[in-house]
């Protein structure tokens, strides 16, 4: 249990003896020159740290880099009492991802481009065009699953650039630490699993119906053509989804607490507006 004790002592001894020579490579290598230099530099050091103690009377104010005062604060305490005061983040801060499901066409481009595969999308085909996005794209796919794992995300922003409808954006929320890692996996799908099953079923039914209709048409081609009752069933389904989507306002996840701040009203047009103004704010 004491294998190294002895060696250890000897090394200590040798150490102290060998290192007993003094490194005097300074400007003053004479004995008194050495002392003088030591006193002088020690005093300089003390003055420096004393200056800092005096300057500690003032604190930095939590003002952003955009502020005119920002580079004026050279002295004083640099740390902020963070949870209580924080540096302002510009509106175009690029931190947590947010997907505006209303505008999402579930094109899967973001998931494709993501270098760390943090976006997981499970599309469900709709039987017909579901809605128009705000910039006029037509939404034809349901997202049975649209998960972004922020624990994996590397904040490269590629997904936002490829997004055709600009529904996937980075927000200025940066403090979203969690005790449980899974909670960093954000679910954006507006369908509950049950509904998703329903949609799938509906689509399969629709396909089956379509197949049947096709078969029937083929048969009718042979006979006659009148596919009037076909549109009845899907329309019913759409209405059903709309009603169910209103009740769970948040992305459906049973064991997650409500997300703190997901600001819905942040619209792309706003961002578009700020873009040209960026040079101004920088100045």
């Amino acid at each position, binding site marked *: 249990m004491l294998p190294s004790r002895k060696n250890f*002592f000897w090394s*200590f001894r040798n150490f102290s003896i060998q290192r007993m020579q003094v490194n005097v490579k300074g400007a003053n290598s004479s004995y008194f020159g050495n002392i003088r230099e030591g006193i002088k530099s020690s005093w300089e050091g003390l003055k420096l*740290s004393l200056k800092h103690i005096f300057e500690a009377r003032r604190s930095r104010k939590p003002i952003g880099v955009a502020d005119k005062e920002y580079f004026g604060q050279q002295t004083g305490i640099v740390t902020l009492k963070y949870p209580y005061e924080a540096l302002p983040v510009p509106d175009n801060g690029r931190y947590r991802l947010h997907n505006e499901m209303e505008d999402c066409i579930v094109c899967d481009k973001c998931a494709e481009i993501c270098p760390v595969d943090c976006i997981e999308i499970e599309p469900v085909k709709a039987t017909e065009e579901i809605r128009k996005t705000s910039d006029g794209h037509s939404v034809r796919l349901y997202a049975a699953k649209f998960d972004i794992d922020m624990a994996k995300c590397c904040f490269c922003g590629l997904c936002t650039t490829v997004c055709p409808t600009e529904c996937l954006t980075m927000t200025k929320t940066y403090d979203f630490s969690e005790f449980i890692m899974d909670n960093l996996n954000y679910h954006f799908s507006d369908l509950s699993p049950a509904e998703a099953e329903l949609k799938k079923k509906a689509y399969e039914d629709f396909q089956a119906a379509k197949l049947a209709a096709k078969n029937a048409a083929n048969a009718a081609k042979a006979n006659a053509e009148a596919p009037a009752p076909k549109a009845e069933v899907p329309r019913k389904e759409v209405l059903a989804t709309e009603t169910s989507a209103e009740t769970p306002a948040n992305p459906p996840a049973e064991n997650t607490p409500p997300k703190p701040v997901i600001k819905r009203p942040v619209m792309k047009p706003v961002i578009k507006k700020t873009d040209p103004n960026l040079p101004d704010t920088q100045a």
Partner: protein
Amino acid sequence: MLAFLIFLGLLLTYMILAVYAERKVSAFIQDRLGPMEIGWYGIGQTVADLIKLLQKEDIVPERADKWPFLAAPMIIFVAVFAGFAVMPLTPDLQGSDAAVGVFYLLAIISIDIIGLLMAGWSSNNKYSLLGAMRSIAQIISYEVPVGLAVICAAVYCQTLDLQAISFQQGIWIHEYPGYAQETNYLFGLRSLGIDVTQVGGFLTWNVVRMPLFFVVYVIFFIATLAECNRAPFDIPEAESELVGGFHTEYSGFRWAILFLAEYGMMLLLTMLGAVLFLGGWNTPLPNIGPVKLAFWTSGAPGTVYGNLTGAFWLVTKAFGGIFVQMWVRWTYPRLRVDQLMYLCWKVLTPACLILLFLSAVWRLLG
């Protein structure tokens, strides 16, 4: 017994304040805020830490030498605390008025050494052992300049009794038995002929009575830094090399005791410095003509006011010294072993010897 309780209370209070102050001073020097959460401006932080430490399990490593391991913190603390026995906190409050006062203090430090060695050895951890060895080598070495600096003061004051030294440095000098005929001259020079006995204040402090004592005090201060294992002489507990030195294996209550002892040592030695060189419990404010600042700010021995002001001034001076210790600690990087020894044996000790000679000469001729 009164002194015992007062000093124990003082030590505990001081420790809480000092740890807080240490963190704050370090934070300010490094442009940080330091503890801010518990209490106003984080004032309760140390108390919380202490409570945490007291609650922690008292861990004894399995392969440690149990009894020495358990006893070591107590020995260290007792040694340091025993040192306060001869410290004159006020004109009337002194644990023991032993004639060998200062010498006794130096002896106490030797017991501290054994405690450190015990802790280091019994931890059965090579970092602890190395820390203890370094600590002892350092303390023993720096005992020489400390001792010499103390002797400088003792030679000048002609006594080892700290209370007598305190009385000498102020306006109440005639109150001390045997000093009724003493006179304090400016700079200790009789030939100058300026009688400052009743002026008092900082003019009768030892650093002024014998101006070279300023250098002695600086040397004393540097050496006490090493005695307390304080940065820049903290190679015994260099965190980046040795984890924590001799207290690596300690935790909880015992660790707290060790820290208490370490901070107690700081207080003890800064107080000693204040008593020896900075006038002890005497006020720094002199009587200027009709403006009797000294009489106003320090009461006569024996009165409550005198005791209160005495304690106030001494504690203030000690705290000032501790502040400088902290200031120094957060300014300088750690010394190498060879630099440490160079400083001790080739700079401080010779300088002290010369100064000792000069002190004696000043005493004889002044």
